[in-house]
């Protein structure tokens, strides 16, 4: 397949970078998942912690030193509601 300069330029222009914050958040996924696993395991083992999470998710997590991102919070809300 022939690639002249114009065609190459067009193809290089076609893939601008995704916003850095999006890329970083996706790269931190394994970390977030590990944190989620720790919180869920703790909630399963400790009824009082689970009740605190249901009453005030963000407050209860902050009190225990967790700093989950928004997506982890969303997943926790979903898990606690089910």
């Amino acid at each position, binding site marked *: *397949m*022939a*690639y*002249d*300069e114009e065609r*190459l*330029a067009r*193809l*290089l*222009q*076609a*893939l*601008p*970078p*995704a*916003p850095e914050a*999006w*890329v970083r*958040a*996706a*790269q931190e*996924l*394994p970390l977030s*998942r590990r944190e989620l696993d720790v919180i869920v395991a703790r909630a399963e083992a400790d009824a009082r912690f689970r009740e605190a999470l249901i009453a005030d998710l963000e407050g209860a997590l902050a009190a225990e030193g967790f700093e989950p991102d928004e*997506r982890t919070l969303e997943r926790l809300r979903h898990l606690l509601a089910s």
Partner: protein
Amino acid sequence: MSDAQLVARCRAGEEAAWNELVARFSRYVYGIAVQAFRLPEHDAEDVFQDCFARVYENLDRLRDDSALRPWIGQLTRRLCIDRLRGSSREQPVDEEVLLADAEDTIARLDEAMTVHEALAHLSADCREILDRFFAQDQSYRTIGNALDIPSGTIASRISRCLTKLRELLEGKKPDVEPV
């Protein structure tokens, strides 16, 4: 590193490999969401994160490790379509027309990915210059300042790097010495 090698290292739990996987496909997923399906920024961000979350969760189920790109492409398409169907309750869209347009754009993005992957075989200088000028739309002055090279030489460097890239894509072995 090939896609198959990258998948194997991700499965082994190597964080650096996961970072590389996201970096390698982030433009592709972003391009499908924003260019092919024309999702608004907020929806595109959700699709982007959902896509990588699913890749992370389902990497073990990928049957052919070398088919990572088509798999990610298909995953992104499905997420975009779901998103559009959700929003079409408020604002109807002609799904057939949109999908036909999207497929044309995705075919172009696939070709662009092939070119982008070939960049990895060029010198770091060439990669930087071509990516900054074409994909990031930076001026000669910005590139010159960032890479500490005279801006008057950028145009000729771009031309030389394009020649090397073309040789590589056309199956010739380019000279990879710095430009």
